[in-house]
């Protein structure tokens, strides 16, 4: 037995010596690194980014390197470093929100020639390294459209929203969904449940069951992976709107539509800029990139079989207004769900309004509290 071990050991060492040649990298290729906090096939946040990586790799001169399930610790710093040093990446996309501070900021300082592009963070001039940029999509536009469809198809008038945390990005989607639904069905309510974390499938399934038991007949969510929520809704025979990525495969009967990211478009734009020699530090790549339906950053899933003509008509009308720029989601008169005023009649928050990025309220029609 011992003999076998030593011969195996010899073989391991020998192959180690033979195959330790460096990874070849073509100089004319743009190497882009993509880092995800969860698995690439979560039907959610990470899958959306992985699809974006697959999309940009259709360009023959782009080489994408990917790492999934990288925690928001020094692990992501090491991953970024390896992509830069070992794979020759000149631009990295660490996609999870928690990668930004301190991890990206630290590596960006150490690697001033590399472009660090982060999803959702806020680049602050003068405070952050110049080779850091941020991109995000106004996905609340697609969520608003999903709300319109949900408002049409609900019979009980009770909609359910399973959310991770009461933070501005999430509250904005809850409010957009509610406003969309109530724009066509003023009596509709949205019951919200916060699970407290980004990926807790057991709690998400429990929340889905509990909402359905209370009479909710359309569910949607903002968690990292909508998988169990889609599956639970389908099994219980109710409707569901997807989030992050297309989930119609998991709920072929009940899937109405969904708000999806279109990162292929964003990553392809960046690849073109990098190839043209543009950099964040020189200011030729903008530090803040934002866009909605009009810019192609987000999209709506194709309608499911249960969506009626009336719903499609209203949804398409809203989409058309987003496309021509005339739609404003948050406009007065707007009340919060404890009876207070958010906006008086005649005033509005446009998409770019910084107030929306600090959102701490829930609009009238949402059942639930940010304190829960």
């Amino acid at each position, binding site marked *: *037995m*011992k003999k076998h*071990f030593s011969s*195996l*050991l010899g*073989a*391991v060492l020998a*192959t*180690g010596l*033979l*195959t*330790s040649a460096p*990874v070849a990298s073509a100089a004319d290729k743009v190497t882009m690194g993509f880092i995800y906090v969860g*698995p*690439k096939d979560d039907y959610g946040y990470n899958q959306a980014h992985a699809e974006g990586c697959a999309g940009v790799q259709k360009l023959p001169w782009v080489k994408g*390197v*990917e*790492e*999934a*399930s*990288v*925690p*928001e*610790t*020094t*692990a992501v*710093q*090491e*991953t970024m*470093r*390896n*992509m830069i*040093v*070992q*794979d020759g990446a000149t631009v990295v996309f660490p996609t999870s*929100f*928690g990668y930004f*501070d*301190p991890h990206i900021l630290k590596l960006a300082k150490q690697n001033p020639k590399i472009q660090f592009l982060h999803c*959702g963070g*806020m680049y602050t001039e003068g405070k952050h390294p110049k080779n850091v940029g941020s991109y995000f999509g106004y996905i609340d536009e697609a969520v608003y459209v999903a709300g319109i469809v949900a408002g049409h198809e609900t019979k009980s008038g009770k909609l359910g929203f399973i959310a991770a*945390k009461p*933070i*501005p*990005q999430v509250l904005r989607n809850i409010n957009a969904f509610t406003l969309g639904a109530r724009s066509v069905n003023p009596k509709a309510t949205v019951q919200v449940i916060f699970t*407290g*974390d980004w990926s807790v499938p057991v709690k998400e399934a429990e929340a889905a069951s509990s909402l359905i038991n209370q009479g909710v007949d359309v569910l949607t969510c903002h968690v990292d992976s909508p998988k169990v929520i889609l599956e639970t809704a389908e099994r219980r025979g109710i409707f569901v709107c997807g989030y992050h990525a297309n989930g119609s495969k998991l709920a072929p009967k009940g899937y109405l539509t969904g708000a999806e990211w279109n990162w292929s478009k964003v990553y392809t734009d960046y690849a073109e800029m990098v190839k043209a020699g543009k950099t964040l530090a020189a200011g030729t790549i903008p530090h803040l990139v934002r866009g909605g339906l009009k810019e192609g950053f987000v999209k709506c899933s194709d309608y499911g079989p249960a969506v009626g003509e009336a719903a499609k008509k209203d949804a398409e009308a809203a989409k058309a207004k987003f496309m021509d720029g005339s739609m404003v989601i948050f406009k007065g008169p707007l009340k919060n769900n404890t009876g207070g005023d958010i906006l008086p009649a005649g005033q509005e928050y446009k998409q770019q309004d910084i107030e929306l*990025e*600090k959102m701490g309220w829930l609009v009238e029609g949402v059942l639930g509290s940010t304190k829960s």
Partner: protein
Amino acid sequence: MSSTPEAKVAVATPAAAAGRPPLPWRPALEGVVIPVGAVLVALALFGLFCFVQGRNAFAVFAAINKAAFGSWYAFQNTLVRAAPLMLTALATALPARLGLVVIGNEGALVMGGLAATVAGLAVQTAPLLVVLGVMLAAGMIGGGLWLAIVGALYYQRGVNETIASLLLNYIAIALLNHLVNGPLRDPSSLNKPSSFPIPDEKMLPVIGSSNVHYGLFFGIAACLLAWVLMEHTTFGFKVRMIGGNIRAARLAGLPVALLGIITCFLAGAAAGAAGMVEVAAVHGRANESLAAGYGYAGILVAFVARHRGLPIILVATLLGGILASGGILQREFKLPDATILVFQGLVFLVILFSDSLYGKFGFFKEERR
């Protein structure tokens, strides 16, 4: 009681007394061959897995070696990941010598990180060494008290230590979330609620020009101290006596509860120091990233190292290396991200299994019979 070490020495020399040539290197060799053999068996099993996945197993091994230990650059990656594991492993290893299975590492790390943050913010204008000293003390006390609760519940009220420490993890994480969402929250941390930050210049620096922070020294020092304490002091001897036979220890007049609670405090202090290092060297603030799983990984390290201080350093480095090589399997071999967990699971299962082989081979006996 104090005469027992001498008794041990007397027992160890029957071979010499009988006039046969002693072979003292053979038991020592057993301690090397069995773990090394276990790693090789695990490599063979993992090679089979790679083969099934359609990859050249030897190329994968070479890549793992290259990414974890192949160069100083790669080894830094390993050390960065190993540093917190050395500290959190002690939180299981020390009480294990009492015969307790404590798995409250994650909670103690979180409480240590929280205490270190609060203390660090309170003295942030003081000189660097004062800030770091206060943070370390606060972190160790925070984590220590947290696991002292486990010891007190066990020795005073008979509450099962494993369940108590597991539940305290959840409480600690809930407390962390509550505090960073409420009283400690920096209002500018919008989408990732966090405490106010420790100033950059008051953070724990990296060692020289490397990427490794001083937390690694804390880890190695703590493991060495734990080793000396447990193997070479009367305190350690008393603790091991409680672990060996708690009734005999009571009959011998040992203050069992006090010793047990102190040991649990030290265990928590080690994990609390890991929390302090995470805040002071990595995150600069307290937020949900503190509960990143180092505590749970530490349980694994402690068991594989058989709860001994010195082997913990090695096992933590091995696990750090395995984690460090996870990336290259994805980037170079396009293997799924769970592959490294398969590898880690195989290595540790085989090592734990190999525990049952000690004393089974006649070759490793001190004398031939």
